[in-house]
C-alpha cells in the first residue's frame, strides 16, 4: 500500500516540523524538502508505468514520438519549476519564487515554439 506509506511520511514530517519550528525554524524547510523528494522517488515506479502506457497509446495512434517527448519534457520542467518555487515560498522568498515561475514559463514557451511554427506552416499551406 504505497498510499499509506506516503500519507504516513507526510504526517510524520509535518509533526516533526511543528516541533522543530518552535526552536529552529530554519531547519523546517530542509525537512519538507527531503519529504518532497522522498515522496517523488517513492511514486517514480508508478509514474513510469503510467508514462509507458501513454507512449504505448501514442504509438498505437501513429503519433510522432517527438510530440510525446515534448509533452513529457514540458511536464518535467513544470514539475521542477513548481518544486523550486514552492520551496522558495516556504522560506518566505515570494519574489524569488515568482522569478523561478517566470523562467519556467519562458522555457516551456521556447520548447513549444517549433510546434507553433509547424502549425503556422500548415495553415500557410492550406490557405490559397
Amino acid at each position: 500500500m504505497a498510499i499509506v506509506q506516503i500519507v504516513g511520511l507526510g504526517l510524520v514530517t509535518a509533526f516533526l516540523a511543528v516541533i522543530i519550528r518552535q526552536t529552529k525554524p530554519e531547519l523546517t524547510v530542509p525537512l519538507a524538502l527531503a519529504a518532497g523528494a522522498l515522496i517523488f522517488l517513492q511514486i517514480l515506479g508508478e509514474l513510469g508505468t503510467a508514462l509507458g502506457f501513454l507512449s504505448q497509446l501514442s504509438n498505437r495512434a501513429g503519433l510522432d514520438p517527438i510530440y510525446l517527448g515534448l509533452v513529457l519534457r514540458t511536464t518535467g520542467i513544470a514539475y521542477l519549476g513548481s518544486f523550486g518555487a514552492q520551496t522558495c515560498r516556504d522560506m518566505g522568498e515570494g519574489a524569488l519564487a515568482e522569478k523561478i515561475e517566470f523562467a519556467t514559463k519562458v522555457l516551456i514557451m521556447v520548447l513549444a515554439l517549433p510546434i507553433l511554427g509547424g502549425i503556422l506552416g500548415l495553415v500557410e499551406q492550406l490557405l490559397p
Partner: protein
Amino acid sequence: MDVEMIFRIAGIGLLISVLSMVLKQAGKEEQAQMLTLAGVVVVLMLILQLVSQLFASVRSVFGL
C-alpha cells in the same frame, strides 16, 4: 522507503536546539550561533544528495 532521512534531519534539529539552549544558558551566545550554522550546513549536505537524486530521476523519467 527512506524515512531514516527525515528522522535524521529532525534529530539534528532537536539536538542543535537543545545544545544551543545549553550554550545560551552558559552565556556563550556566539558559540550557540556557530552551532546553529554548523547544524544548518550538515542538514544541507544531507539534503543535497537527496535533491540531486530527485533531479536525476526527474531528468531520466521526463527525458529532459
